[in-house]
């Protein structure tokens, strides 16, 4: 029994007790750590609200009318968030997946509704028009009572499709992968919505009942808002009853704990999970449709920002508790509305009302304990040898990378067609940007890949580093290279801060906390004029001056004014970072980081200081990200908040995960995106091939999400596979060849299972034939083929047996000769 088991038991005991002795409930509940933590979280939030109110009080007269009006608006807003949040909570309760795509599905629902109800020329007809058939009148609007169910059904269908095609196949993978897949789905759906409904066209979206409603205390309360409030309440209560009382609801909750057990009781887990997804997606759609009138016009990215608020609300209920999530949503709605009315905010602090949601999310995620036991799901695969790139391999690889990059960019290697001067400035700038982003992604490798700490805010660290550079080094020190470590040293404490606050968190909780952190940085830090001086003339990046080497001049000072030099410099930096990472992975630090990701409980039991280990890895990661942020800024020439946008950061994380976050060189995978955009630009420059341009554009847009979906089949990442293939070609990697053979053997004959490794040692095919025919009575050959053998020697694979590890001795001697 682990530590987390205990907290879970503790919580359950408290719940039981509370139910039995209602009279004692309030007196004793103070002994419940969760209640105490809840009170702490509430206190911190209340303190923040009070402080902000005192500092920014606008001095408006407090009349009953304004208070009442804004409270009703706040309640309606809160109810909208509640609809989203209940969808999240229901899905989390029934499938164990926290759906980051909830907002995106809501966006989709809102657009479908807009097409059916508001658009003069709906999508369906535009599609039919493609075939030059006109069957319906020019203007066609469905009544909202018809349009809404259709939109909701479409959302439900999306949910079912997601479950059947993607989520169901993720049962065996880690929760981290499941979470990233939903992030990928979010990015994909948003991109799709942006493509179908481009943002240029205004799409007015009027409230239901045309914004009319009764006047109460001199304030008009629109029927739309009343309806929203009633709907949200009904949904929350109805769902709670559904989950607690109905057979289907109880079945839904049981499936999350164990699909196998649930199926024993006669429920079909697949049907259950599909209905859960349908339900969650329909709630998202409902939320999207109801919230759309709060915006002037429909815009996918705008609408999606709501999802952070929904996350915050769901967090208030520890992602599981519907009533608490509802209360949280209402509270956020009220806080947002009232702060935006009563506070007098300068442009620097204009985002404060919006920033409360991520703030609450962060506080709650940090304070409320992780009561959910997140089991490590071990997929027992082939018995495999641990093989991590050796430092000398990394050194040679890094040197080769530098050589190839310098040669290619200098045009020395042209293969008869390659001419870098043809590529123009745009393409080179692209390569610089690519290298910078690759470096930012690489900063996640020790953090996410090794220590298992998901970080959805890599660009927040990068942005902070860039800020330090523009503020202190670019102007004052004229970009001298030796000031760069200052950026790293200044960014590292930010990482340490995140590590200390998030030290107890794992998985989804950590993902949410980092997302909230990124959002707060965007709202408060990057929006401040001290950070980004003014929106028209942003702060420029001073180009770096470095010590460089070439054969003509030897070592000399070089100002990186052109992109070619910058690109080569970044390649060198990248190679150095990779070598450092590989050394680290073999050091006791790297080992401890990986151990921490495997089992925190066991790490503690052998004397590892978990908090300090996390502080170390976060600081290290932040330092690399900060440095890379400077290079990313240089590629963008000026410091704008947009370059450090959250969605861009998510795409980065997705691409890295798709590549394989534990492999130091995985970042290179990101260059594909820039290769494609470079090609697209090149095509635009010269003879443009329209359809090819189109393909490239779409690839650039959908690439990250689609590639991340690749984790469904290959959770270790694409680079891992490529590396496996590549390793077989290396003369000193006999182990890779043997592993590959074993894999092929298993693929051809899954029944052999672990025997795959030893298959080539089986005496002959007759034995195999015997096994297939079910004849097990042949004599046991010499060399220890026994049926009675120790655990794990593959008795289950078939009746026969082989020696435990004949391959072992081979490769051991192999490795010895290696060293």
């Amino acid at each position, binding site marked *: *029994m*682990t*530590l987390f088991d*205990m907290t879970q*038991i*503790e919580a359950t*005991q*408290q719940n*039981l*007790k509370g139910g039995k002795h209602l009279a004692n409930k309030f007196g*004793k509940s103070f*002994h*419940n750590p969760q209640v105490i933590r809840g009170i702490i979280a509430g206190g911190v939030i209340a303190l923040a609200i009070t402080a902000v109110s005192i500092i920014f009080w606008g001095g408006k007269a407090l009349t009953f009318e304004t208070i009442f009006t804004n409270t009703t608006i706040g309640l309606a807003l809160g109810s909208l968030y509640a609809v989203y949040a209940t969808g999240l909570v229901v899905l989390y309760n029934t499938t164990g997946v926290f759906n980051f795509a909830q907002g995106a599905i809501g966006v989709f629902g809102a657009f479908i509704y807009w097409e059916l109800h508001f658009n003069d020329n709906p999508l369906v007809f535009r599609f039919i028009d493609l075939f030059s058939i006109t069957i319906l009148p020019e203007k066609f609007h469905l009544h909202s009572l018809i349009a809404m169910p259709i939109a909701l059904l479409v959302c439900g269908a999306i949910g079912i499709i997601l479950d059947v095609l993607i989520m169901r196949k993720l049962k065996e993978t880690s929760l981290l992968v499941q979470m990233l897949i939903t992030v990928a789905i979010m990015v994909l759906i948003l991109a799709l919505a942006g493509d179908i409904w481009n943002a240029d066209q205004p799409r007015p979206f009027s409230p239901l009942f045309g914004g009319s409603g009764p006047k109460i205390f001199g304030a008009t309360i629109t029927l739309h808002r009343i309806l929203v409030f009633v709907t949200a309440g009904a949904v929350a209560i109805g769902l709670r009853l559904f989950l607690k009382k109905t057979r289907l609801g109880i079945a839904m909750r049981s499936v999350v704990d164990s699909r196998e057990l649930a199926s024993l009781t006669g429920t079909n887990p697949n049907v259950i999970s599909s209905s859960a997804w349908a339900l969650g997606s329909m709630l998202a759609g409902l939320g999207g449709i109801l919230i759309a009138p709060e915006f002037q016009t429909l815009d996918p990215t705008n609408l999606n920002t709501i999802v952070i608020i929904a996350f915050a609300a769901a967090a208030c209920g520890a992602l599981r508790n519907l009533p608490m999530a509802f209360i949280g949503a209402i509270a956020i709605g009220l806080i947002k509305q009232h702060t935006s009315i009563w506070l007098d905010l300068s442009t620097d602090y204009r985002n404060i009302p919006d920033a409360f949601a991520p703030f609450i999310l962060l506080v709650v995620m940090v304070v409320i304990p992780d009561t959910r036991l997140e089991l*490590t799901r*071990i997929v*027992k*695969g*082939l*018995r*495999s*040898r*641990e093989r*991590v790139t*050796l*430092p*000398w391999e990394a*050194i040679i690889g890094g040197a080769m990378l530098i050589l190839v990059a310098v040669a290619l960019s200098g045009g020395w290697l042209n293969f008869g067609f390659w001419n870098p001067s043809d590529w123009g400035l745009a393409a080179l700038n692209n390569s610089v940007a690519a290298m910078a982003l690759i470096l930012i992604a690489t900063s996640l490798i020790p953090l996410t890949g090794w220590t298992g700490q998901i970080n959805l805010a890599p660009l927040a660290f990068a942005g902070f580093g860039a800020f330090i550079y523009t503020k202190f080094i670019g102007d004052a020190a004229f970009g001298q290279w030796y000031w760069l470590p200052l950026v790293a040293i200044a960014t590292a404490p930010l990482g340490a801060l995140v590590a200390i606050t998030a030290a107890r968190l794992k998985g989804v909780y950590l993902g949410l906390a980092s997302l909230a952190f990124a959002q707060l940085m965007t709202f408060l830090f990057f929006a401040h004029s001290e950070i980004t001086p003014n929106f028209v003339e942003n702060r420029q990046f001073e180009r770096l001056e470095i010590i460089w080497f070439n054969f003509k001049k030897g070592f000399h000072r070089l100002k990186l004014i052109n992109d070619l030099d910058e690109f080569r410099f970044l390649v060198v930096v990248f190679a150095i970072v990779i070598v450092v990472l590989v*050394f680290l*992975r*073999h*050091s*006791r630090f790297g*080992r*401890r980081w*990986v*151990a921490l*990701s*495997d*089992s925190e*409980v*066991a790490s*503690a*039991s*052998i*004397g*590892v*200081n*978990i908090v300090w280990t996390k502080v170390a890895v976060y600081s290290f990661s932040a330092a690399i990200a900060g440095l890379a942020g400077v290079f990313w800024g240089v590629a963008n020439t000026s410091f704008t908040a947009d370059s450090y946008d959250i969605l861009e950061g998510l795409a980065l994380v997705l691409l890295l995960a798709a590549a394989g976050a534990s492999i130091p060189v995985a970042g290179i995978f990101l260059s594909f995106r820039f290769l494609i955009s470079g090609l697209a630009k090149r095509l635009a420059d010269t003879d443009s091939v329209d359809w090819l341009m189109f393909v490239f554009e779409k690839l650039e847009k959908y690439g990250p999400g689609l590639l991340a979906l690749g984790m469904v089949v290959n959770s270790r990442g694409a680079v891992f596979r490529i590396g496996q293939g590549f390793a077989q070609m290396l003369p000193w990697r006999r182990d890779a060849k043997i592993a590959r053979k074993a894999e092929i053997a298993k693929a051809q004959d899954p029944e052999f299972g672990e025997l795959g490794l030893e298959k080539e040692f089986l005496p002959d095919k007759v034995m195999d034939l015997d096994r297939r025919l079910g004849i097990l009575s042949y004599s046991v050959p010499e060399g220890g083929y026994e049926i009675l053998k*120790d*655990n*794990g*020697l593959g008795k289950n694979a078939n009746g026969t047996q082989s020696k*435990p*590890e004949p391959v*072992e001795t081979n*490769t*051991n001697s192999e*490795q*010895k000769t290696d*060293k």
Partner: protein
Amino acid sequence: MEHTNGRSKFLNRFIQSINGDFTPLVFQKDLDAMANFDDRQFDGSTLETTDVKMYFGGVKALDGASIKVEPGKLTSLIGPNGAGKTTLFNVITGFLKPTAGQVFLEGREITREPIRARSKMGIARTFQKLEAFNTLSTRDNILVAGEKHNTRTETPTKLEVDALMEDVGLAEYSDITVGTLPTGIARRVELARALATHPRILLLDEPSSGLNESETEEMAQLLSKLTKQGLSILLVEHDMSFVMSVSDFIYVLDFGKIIAQDIPEKIQNDPKVRAAYLGAH
């Protein structure tokens, strides 16, 4: 791996590093010392709990449990399911802070010490549910536990790790990823990892679960070898014949209380113990 061929220390260190090995250099004296691994001695220590109480809300998981583990002895803790055995383990190792009562190691109170401090003082444990570092190799599992900062001693050399793996019967699995090993062997990895922290007392939570008969036999031999080398062991186990064969002293826990304590032969015939196991209350 024998860096005794007259190369300079610096060159040896360099070659070792670029091969990803940062363990201390191995010299001739280490090789000489290797001969003595078999009569390795543990500095076994006394562990005592006095009247430990652990309440979860209204449930009394432990209600005044006092046990004592003598140095170099194997003490067992048995009892029916839910008797509080694992809870007591968690209290001793610091995973839970008791509601009342104290834990002493070598006469020093450690009730409020954090988990890692207890590990450094020499308390090592295994887990009922396997908690190995699944993506690391067997060798790395042992190394990570033996490294400086984690223990009172220096980072083990490659030879020491090899010797430990040989002892526990893991030599052939040294480079295999532990997550892909069968349970029985992974349990041994966990045990080797605990031993690598240079423990003074070892707490084993159901080491024989998931093992077959011959593996259990090997485990019993290994445990008696360890106690002979001076290590104190506290064992929680369901397999009665295993417990009776290896224990020097047995505590029986039921409903959070010690209901009997004696040598194995007497425990076997204790009517209270039988009643507890049969559920006659």
